[in-house]
């Protein structure tokens, strides 16, 4: 049945036509301001700022006062982890708003393309994220800048952090729009937290795309003295930015693809945007697949800047308080007096002996589980000291004490290198073993006895090694730990240490070659 009803056609009063251009831009600004006022993301800010202060800021301030050290946690993604789960969760909550509040139908029949309205809502939420996180990073950087002794500020981690958060916000928002349930937000937050936690320790190149793990690899070396000896690397941060911008563009493009978001042209534009996001992210995945990782330094040939391979030139700061000059990078000159004083008894004891180092130099840190890696190289011999600064794995940075995985109880990196007493206790044995191994050797009983005697004369008693009993994961130390009191080797070492410095010097000058060649026994020792 077809019925026709006709009402009297009273013409509507003509209305002023809608203006486009500037008026629309003003309306968009007004819409953004309204969304800014009512964004649920505002609730996230106090939580994020508190976590940042509690987790990242406090711990960073306990590290060595260099840019490399005090941004170490930031570069490992700690600040991002403080914010990201909440950002993604609140973004999902915002995105799910129309579905949760059943406003989709009312809004669906308004003139403004749904994509534009959604982008406005997302932009407001993300504005607060960027503002809050940027504020926290600004406070951290200003605080570091006020007391830093060396290095330069790394900016790539800031860019990676903010890009990562913007992408998390976009992904969370898109998921909220697509799955408008009250459970979406907490689920998204939990999943983001788990992904960041897993990728932080996950092996493999592709895990390096996570902003919560990769910055530490992108800097050279992968230690806290990045920016002191070598420039910060930018290969991986560039690729990370590609990846996260790609994901953000994909998420935002997806918002416009659904049929309720406008005409065919608008949907086509959204689809092209989403495809561009996929292409960008895929490019990043391809690039990271070509990465080479050597000593924690990531090189991606397609985006590599070779100027970052050149070491930073510097004039060492040296101390003359020991028998030989002890020199460090000027970034660590605050530690120089304690390092020189802590090592002085050892260096004084061996100074002038055949094969003894004539100078001690700080070299870039290496990936190792020891607080110091010492080696004697060259002729005349030089003692190279690679100081571990700010390494979480060894020098805990939490005020609550060391994690259970740390076997060597000591202190924070900053406390250690500022104290000649602690250096004498914790560092001198390691340095001493490297020196005596280079001078004498540790291969046979005679060499071990003389080495232990020399160390004892330098203030490292043989009982020190026995008492440590496997605490140092250093093969040379472990040799000496097996020389137990009462054994002939131990007794010979005690006798050698008891000699006068002149007598030891004279005996070594006469017998060092034979001793190093392994042609002396304990019976040949004084």
């Amino acid at each position, binding site marked *: *049945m077809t019925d026709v009803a*006709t*009402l009297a056609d*009273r013409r509507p009063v003509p209305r002023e036509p809608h203006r486009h251009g500037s008026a629309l831009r003003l309306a968009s600004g007004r819409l953004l301001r309204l969304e800014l006022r009512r964004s649920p993301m505002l609730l996230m800010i106090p939580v994020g700022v508190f976590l940042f202060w509690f987790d990242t800021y406090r711990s960073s301030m306990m590290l060595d006062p260099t840019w490399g050290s005090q941004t170490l946690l930031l570069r490992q993604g700690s600040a991002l982890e403080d914010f990201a789960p909440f950002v993604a969760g609140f973004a999902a909550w915002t995105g799910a708003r129309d579905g949760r509040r059943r406003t989709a*139908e009312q809004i669906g029949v308004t*003139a403004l393309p749904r994509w534009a309205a959604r982008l406005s809502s997302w932009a407001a939420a993300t504005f607060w994220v960027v503002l809050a996180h940027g504020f926290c990073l600004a406070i951290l950087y200003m605080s570091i800048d006020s007391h830093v002794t060396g290095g330069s500020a790394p900016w790539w981690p800031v860019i990676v952090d903010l890009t990562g958060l913007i992408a998390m916000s976009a992904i969370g928002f898109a998921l909220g729009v697509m799955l408008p349930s009250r459970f979406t937000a907490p689920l998204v937050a939990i999943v983001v937290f788990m992904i960041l936690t897993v990728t932080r320790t996950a092996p493999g190149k592709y895990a390096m795309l996570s902003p919560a793990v990769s910055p530490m690899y992108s800097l050279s070396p992968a230690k806290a003295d990045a920016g002191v000896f070598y420039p910060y690397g930018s290969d991986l941060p560039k690729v990370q930015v590609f990846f996260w911008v790609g994901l953000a563009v994909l998420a935002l493009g997806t918002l416009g693809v659904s049929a309720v978001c406008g*005409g065919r042209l608008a949907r086509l534009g959204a689809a092209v945007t989403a495809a561009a996001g996929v292409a960008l992210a895929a490019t990043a995945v391809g690039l990271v697949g070509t990465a080479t990782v050597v000593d924690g330094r990531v090189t991606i040939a397609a985006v590599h800047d070779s100027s970052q391979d050149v070491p930073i030139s510097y004039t060492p700061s040296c101390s003359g308080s020991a028998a030989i000059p002890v020199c460090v990078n000027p970034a660590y000159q605050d530690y120089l007096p304690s390092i020189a004083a802590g090592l002085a008894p050892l260096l004084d004891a061996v100074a002038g002996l055949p094969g003894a180092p004539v100078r001690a130099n700080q070299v870039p840190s290496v990936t190792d589980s020891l607080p110091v890696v010492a080696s004697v190289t060259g002729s005349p011999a030089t003692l190279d000291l690679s100081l571990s600064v700010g390494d979480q794995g060894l020098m805990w940075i939490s005020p609550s004490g060391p994690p259970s995985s740390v076997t060597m109880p000591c202190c924070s990196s900053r406390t250690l290198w500022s104290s000649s007493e602690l250096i004498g206790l914790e560092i001198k044995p390691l340095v001493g073993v490297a020196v005596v191994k280079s001078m004498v050797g540790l291969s046979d009983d005679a060499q071990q006895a003389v080495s232990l005697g020399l160390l004892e004369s330098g203030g490292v008693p043989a009982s020190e090694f026995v008492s440590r009993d496997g605490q140092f994961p250093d093969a040379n130390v472990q040799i000496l730990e097996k020389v137990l009191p009462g054994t002939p080797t131990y007794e010979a070492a005690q006798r050698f240490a008891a000699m006068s410095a002149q007598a030891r010097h004279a005996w070594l000058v006469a017998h060092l070659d034979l001793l190093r060649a392994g042609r002396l026994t304990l019976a040949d020792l004084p």
Partner: protein
Amino acid sequence: MNIEMDDLTRRFGRTQAVAGVSLQAGAGVYGLLGPNGAGKTSLLRMLATVIPPSSGTLRLLGRDPGAAAGRREIRRKIGYLPQDLGYYPGFTVVEFVEYFALLKEVPSSKVPAAVAAAVERVELGGKAKAKLRTLSGGMLRRVGIAQAIVNEPELLLFDEPTAGLDPEQRVTFRALLRDLGETSTVVVSTHLVEDVGAACSQVVLMYDGKFAYRGTPAELAARGDEHSVGDAPLERGYSAVLSGVRS
């Protein structure tokens, strides 16, 4: 004509919600009556451009809602209050109405005045700064009406607009409907025949997806003179038409 439809149908799977209806309507208040499942809400949603018709011709405000450009132009001049009003509890009355004004692309410079006028017309001026979560059901319904009229629409579609309003508010709302109908086409879907009698110049009664009756409320009331079901003349007319169709 603000509404022109010819042989309009809408299917949901095997169910035909609207089965070939035709209508031409200019300014005025148009009452849409019918039992549950008659197809009123489906028709209203097609007129609101929420859903497209399955077949037939539909032109709104002289434009084709099937084309993106036409649809956007229509939506600038449309006001829609769905049966199930959604709202953001954290927004104030003014913010919520302003939000819809912006989504309807009311020129930015006119937004504050348009919002204030809409809020005043539904007599919520005293609650303008109140959060929506603090309002009663009736007040929320008025907020919904305010968002529907904030863009001074040429086509207004109300689905059960007086549900939750107290008698005094309903009287005020009927006056508002008559006022709006002076310049716009207002379609009111309702079960309350007294609203139709008081506010509508024309009435359409739907049954089983079709128009079972169209005419003035007085004519509908006259149909019920010989029928005993119903307390008021319009109710008796309504019952009489439905009985006729069913038989």
